[in-house]
């Protein structure tokens, strides 16, 4: 009786598929309804598209390059006359809009590179410390505390003084000095994860420690890692812009949002648009990344009741 009732119920069901109850399925569903995060995704997508299309756009639409100096056109305020003047020109007559697009390439590229390095170092150390505990944990902890105690800016300055970094090595450097928070969080997660039954099960069928760490524990730590990555890239972009602004990061004529502000500071009175635009883009990008990270955190939280 009960079975036939169930059968007829499902036959009349308005949906043919059960809504997914898995972590990722729930996350996807929640994200679809989260308008703020979706908007952040959209804006970020636009910025990335702008960065990727920079070379093509600058050649075919703006008819200039990011280093084309034209001293007769220096410090023009934004005007609608020509596309390359939409955001004005800098003290060398270069189009600010084009430089912003190339700057997007550099700044966001460095952000991604550094975040990847961050994650690699942080996850490896976090997994090792959390899984093996004991001596290894203590050593890694000591390393983390040491690095955390040195104000980041000094680490960056010291490295900048030692080697003159170009864009790529700057990314590598920033990545190698900000892995600490990732390592700490992963370590905490692994502490909890290693007590779970699936670890015991894997061990009982003979899985090696390394296999357990990377194949079994890591996928369960992944949600947290994704969230961190979003905020991480934002943090790296802020650091890169600060160090480039000081003059020790990306060197001109290569454009980065940070070093566009270095000379702009001197023209504060005559050309405020040179100061407002790059900073605005930095803030916008970091804001989008932050909102995405926040949205991901809410979407992936298994404790939130629907």
């Amino acid at each position: 009786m009960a079975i036939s009732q169930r059968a007829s119920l499902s036959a009349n069901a308005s949906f043919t598929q059960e809504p997914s109850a898995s972590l990722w399925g729930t996350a996807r569903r929640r994200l679809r309804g989260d308008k703020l995060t979706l908007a952040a995704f959209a804006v970020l997508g636009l910025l990335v598209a702008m960065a990727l299309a920079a070379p093509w756009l600058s050649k075919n639409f703006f008819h200039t390059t990011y280093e084309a100096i034209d001293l007769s056109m220096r410090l023009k305020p934004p005007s609608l006359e020509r596309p390359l003047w939409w955001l004005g020109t800098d003290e060398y007559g270069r189009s600010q809009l084009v430089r912003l697009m190339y700057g997007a390439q550099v700044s966001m590229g460095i952000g991604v590179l550094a975040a990847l390095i961050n994650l690699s170092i942080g996850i490896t150390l976090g997994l090792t410390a959390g899984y093996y505990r004991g001596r290894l944990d203590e050593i890694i902890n000591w390393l983390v505390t040491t690095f955390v105690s040195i104000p980041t800016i000094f680490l960056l300055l010291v490295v900048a003084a030692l080697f003159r970094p170009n864009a790529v090595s700057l990314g590598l450097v920033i990545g190698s000095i900000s892995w600490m928070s990732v390592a700490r969080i992963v370590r905490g997660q692994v502490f909890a994860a290693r007590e779970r039954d699936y670890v015991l099960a894997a061990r009982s069928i003979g899985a090696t420690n390394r296999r357990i760490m990377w194949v079994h524990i890591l996928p369960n730590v992944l949600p947290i890692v994704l969230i961190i990555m979003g905020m991480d890239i934002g943090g790296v972009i802020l650091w890169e812009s600060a160090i480039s602004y000081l003059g020790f990061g990306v060197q001109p004529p290569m454009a980065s949002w940070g070093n566009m502000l270095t000379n702009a500071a001197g023209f504060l009175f005559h050309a405020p648009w040179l100061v407002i635009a790059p900073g605005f883009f930095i803030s916008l990008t970091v804001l989008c990344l932050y909102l995405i990270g926040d949205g991901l955190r809410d979407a992936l939280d298994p404790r939130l009741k629907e």
Partner: protein
Amino acid sequence: MKFIIRRLILAIPTLLGITMLTFAIQRVAPGDPVRIFTYAEPDISQEEIVRLRSQLGLDKPLPVQYLVWLGRIVRLDMGRSYTTHRPVTEMMGERIGNTLTLAITALLIALPMGITLGVYSAFKQGTILDNIGRVFAVLGNTIPHFWLGLLFILVFSVHLRWFPSSGVSTLGRQGFDLLDRLWHLFLPAIVLATGGIANYSRYMRTETLEVIRQDYIRTAYAKGLVPWVMLYRHALRNALIPLVTILGGSLASLFSGALVIENVFSWPGMGRLGYDAVLQRDYPVLMGLTVISSALVILGYLLADIAYALVDPRIRHE
């Protein structure tokens, strides 16, 4: 008391780690300590150089060199600058006052504002005011602070002409004019405080929200306590406790922030010293700054831990 000793001992390995790192970097750095002397006498002979090396201890094995260097650091002798040839400690001593003024003022601004904003946000949860507060908190963390400084200069110095844009005091002023100093201090301190306001308000909001849901708050309310009294005597005290830990961690970001802000506002502090040191590849100064600021950061964490134990009786009886 035992607690304090224990925490002090725990801090030592970290201090050693930092000194090891700075020593290693100084060794890796191009530029010879002997340079200081060869700079003065370009025709110095080979034997002289060898003698100088052994005099400076550069021919001893590396670990011994490290220990010697460590011994000097502990006695606050950080060598001499490559450029000005003055003792590094002396150069830092001149500037540290300015940086501390800036940092402490920023902290004094950020704490009350952040706490009030956070608590207020928590009480008005869900309303427009709460959302505005949260937006400010997010913005405080996503906007580059040096850009905010530039914007402030643009608005308040260039257009409105309300505040000066650089320096500690007006040029040519004789003696110590407090009002003038405060006038110059205002903009940089506010900009440096923004990050703190954002963090503290966000933290206080979460904490207060948790606290006011507790049963003892309900009891106090049921007893008929006026909201303000209840707020101060019960809610705030408990919500404030974890903030102490966050405070300790603020010192590190205060230093980093101060360095950039000092550059924007031409503030003559340790940050500017570091900036010039990098430009001139002046490693002794740079390393000295790193060691001192790291030591101060560790001190900050230590004080925060001790304060936490003082404020929260539960920790003391562990």
